[in-house]
């Protein structure tokens, strides 16, 4: 978690927690706190007194917190200090697969409906306020609620459409890979851009026609219109509660109607097309199990996890949270669907491209952390991955070793030699410029950063598993 240091104070305000004047997150003595400002007093009291907080926490929709007697960071503006339950690994919408973003969207709408019943509403609908915790989405911003009065429109409608609906529509109707656009557009996809990129057929879908296409048009018309002198406020009673509920239901129906187009890419079918025999698979599985049981890690990064087969082996042999990262959004989609089906609370599938991992972005480049900043892991798994990086992406083995050394304390890596059919496939259409790509060359490159703890030839294959400890 990125935190801006306050020299000498030993306490820091979170670098992404500054837009909402209602309060902010800060860290002290390694613990996470949230200062609630006096300006938010009425809304916070209503959230707690109305029973809304209790109901949302009971359903697992909102992060629970304790009110604590902790000195605030800024006493003059403070009303309360709370200590929220901490999320062990923060992920971002541009790292989620389609169904993760869809579930986050549906959760936001369910919370909005529940809030309305308690006389409140969501004053923001940022996808960054949702995190995946124990296998399910959860709202982490306790200060997202405000008192609702009949007539108020939903202030977060535009934000919801930009953060959720527009990217979901593009992923569903054009290509799953367009979810990555959220990395460029941190406040969600501009609706005029989404409207241009979506196929014309989406205009025959009532939800997409209104909430994306007409919404983009309305924004454009409003932008080009002359503002009224002194910008006087209009009388408030404009959107009835039934109208607001209708709007929320329409958004929900539109989101539910969008689905991930799974075409079974090469990656999703990977295990069917490789030369894995049952013996090879079982041998590899046993080594992973033994390693994880012996090291008892708390955080495992499975890089190039595909649909998460070995992530599940690791999760099943420990109490670790396993980040199951792959660059293919379809593989991650399949992985997440399985997490949902099995109610798996120890696996977090994420779309991460190791050749270009999520950078630090946002204001001052510190609002959202890079993928590597969220480490190191206790154990990194790099199974059937190295040949894709070293040969498929021309990364020298020394650089690979240096990078892996930054990511975790232990590394379980699979070396796939040139004679393996998967490497042959990578080399069939290009020149072999990798004279040092062999087990000895690999071990030489990794010896500069790691201590080799164990070498395990995988039965029924020419592959080798190597367990390294960082020096």
């Amino acid at each position: 978690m990125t935190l801006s240091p306050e020299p000498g104070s030993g306490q820091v305000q979170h670098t992404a927690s500054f837009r909402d004047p209602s309060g902010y997150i800060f860290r002290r003595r390694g613990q996470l706190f949230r200062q609630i400002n006096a300006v938010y007093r009425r809304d916070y009291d209503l959230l707690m007194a109305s029973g809304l907080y209790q109901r949302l926490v009971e359903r697992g929709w909102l992060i629970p917190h304790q009110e604590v007697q902790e000195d605030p960071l800024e006493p003059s503006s403070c009303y309360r200090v709370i200590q929220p339950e901490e999320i062990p690994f923060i992920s971002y919408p541009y790292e989620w697969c389609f169904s993760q973003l869809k579930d986050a969207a549906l959760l936001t709408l369910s919370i909005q409906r529940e809030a309305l019943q308690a006389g409140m509403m969501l004053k923001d609908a940022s996808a960054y306020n949702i995190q995946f915790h124990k296998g399910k989405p959860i709202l982490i911003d306790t200060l997202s609620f405000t008192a609702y009065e009949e007539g108020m429109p939903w202030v977060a409608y535009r934000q919801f459409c930009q953060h959720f609906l527009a990217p979901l529509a593009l992923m569903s109707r054009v290509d799953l890979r367009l979810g990555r656009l959220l990395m460029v557009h941190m406040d969600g996809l501009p609706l005029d851009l989404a409207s241009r990129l979506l196929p014309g057929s989406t205009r025959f879908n009532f939800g997409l026609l209104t909430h994306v296409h007409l919404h983009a048009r309305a924004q454009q018309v409003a932008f080009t219109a002359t503002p009224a002198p002194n910008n006087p406020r209009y009388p408030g009673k404009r959107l009835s509660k039934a109208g607001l509920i209708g709007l929320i239901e329409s958004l929900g129906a539109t989101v539910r109607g969008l689905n991930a187009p799974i075409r079974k890419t090469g990656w999703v079918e990977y295990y069917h097309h490789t030369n894995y025999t049952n013996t090879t698979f079982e041998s590899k599985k046993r080594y992973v199990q033994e390693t994880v049981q012996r090291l008892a890690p708390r955080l495992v990064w499975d890089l190039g996890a595909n649909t998460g087969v070995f992530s599940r082996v690791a999760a099943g042999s420990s109490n670790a949270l396993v980040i199951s990262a792959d660059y293919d959004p379809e593989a991650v989609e399949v992985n997440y669907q399985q997490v949902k089906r099995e109610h798996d609370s120890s696996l977090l599938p994420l779309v991460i491209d190791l050749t270009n991992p999520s950078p630090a972005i946002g204001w001052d480049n510190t609002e959202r952390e890079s993928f590597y900043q969220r480490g190191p892991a206790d154990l990194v798994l790099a199974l059937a991955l190295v040949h894709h990086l070293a040969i498929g992406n021309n990364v020298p083995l020394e650089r690979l070793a240096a990078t892996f050394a930054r990511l975790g304390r232990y590394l379980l890596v699979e070396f796939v030699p040139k004679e393996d059919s998967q490497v042959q496939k990578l080399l069939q259409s290009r020149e072999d410029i990798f004279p040092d790509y062999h087990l000895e060359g690999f071990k030489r490159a990794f010896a500069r950063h790691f201590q080799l703890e164990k070498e395990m030839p995988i039965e029924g294959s020419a592959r080798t598993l190597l367990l390294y400890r960082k020096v």
Partner: protein
Amino acid sequence: MRLHLKPTFLGDHNMYVDPGTGSVLLQIILGAILGGGVAIKLLWKRISALFGKKEPHDPQP
């Protein structure tokens, strides 16, 4: 065309997200259309309740 669209609810100091003039306008129009449907649904719920028909629970996301 002149727009008078800084709404009264923005007097609240916690409202830090710009709702967007066009987005507010569209909501008001859509609300008028969709609100009718909700009103009919609510009426239907009440009629169903009179005959003892149970409503399905709102599914979790």
